[in-house]
């Protein structure tokens, strides 16, 4: 599973609250793909940059293990998302209603690739409570895409979001199967 969303929206917190291990962080190299984007003129010897990616695990049973990968916050690391999303069960797009536009790139990314995703609205203390249908309309989500209000710090809340996502993924796969035979 992929946990996506804008910078500072609570991705690491979400991974940490639901993972059975403390979130691990690893660094991935930014290769030549980013070379045209990064201004290297002032640092001519620097050809790679690193980006931190954190992840956690949930053991479902002895033969099934879920990996939760938090995507790097910046949009331009899309190619890393591509790799993470390949074979992913689905994605959670974390949203902050104070900066809803921050999650547009993630929503676009998963919609275009047909990857099942759910939007989880992290209810920060002091932020106004929104209705899920308002968020759904503001993000122009495809019908059926779940929107769940959540507290990134709460494990119970994280579970609800993941369950909503997996149920949605099941419905999407069933619909595609019916389409292909019909």
């Amino acid at each position, binding site marked *: 599973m992929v946990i996506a969303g804008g910078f500072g929206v609570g991705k690491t917190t979400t991974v940490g*609250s639901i993972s059975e291990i403390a979130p691990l962080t690893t660094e991935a*190299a930014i290769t030549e793909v980013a070379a045209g984007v990064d201004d290297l003129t002032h640092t001519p010897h620097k050809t790679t940059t690193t980006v931190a990616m954190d992840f956690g695990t*949930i053991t*479902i049973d002895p033969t099934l293990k879920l*990996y939760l*990968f938090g995507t790097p916050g910046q949009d331009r690391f899309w190619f890393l998302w591509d790799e993470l999303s390949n*074979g992913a069960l689905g994605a959670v797009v974390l949203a902050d209603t104070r900066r809803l536009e921050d999650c547009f790139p993630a929503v676009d990314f998963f919609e275009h690739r047909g990857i099942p995703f759910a939007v989880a609205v992290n209810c920060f203390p002091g932020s106004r409570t929104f209705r899920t249908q308002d968020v759904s309309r503001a993000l122009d989500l495809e019908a059926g895409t779940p929107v769940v209000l959540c507290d990134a*710090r709460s494990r119970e809340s994280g579970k609800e979001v993941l369950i909503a996502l*997996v149920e949605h993924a099941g419905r999407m796969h069933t619909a595609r199967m019916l389409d292909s035979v019909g």
Partner: protein
Amino acid sequence: VETQVVATAEGLRELDRLTFERHDIVAVCRRPQSIAEIAAKLRLHLNVVRVLAEDLRSAGQLSVHVPHAGTAQDASVLRRVIDGLRTIPDSRGALRDSD
């Protein structure tokens, strides 16, 4: 990143003769691990682990298992995931404030 890696019997036998990162990777793979976990535990770059794991696999010291691509779309797997998620205890909730 989620590819599973585990040390082979041969790899463990030859462990003492391996050096530096190769030694550490085989040692940490006594139990199956993902590439991402190895990188995080050994504080190595993801791509460094990838390259070394491939070398160790060629040498017969590691075995590498790529997860089935269709697993994520298998209805019975999705059902197991939902049931599994429901049984996770809530006890650890609301613990960290830092992000």
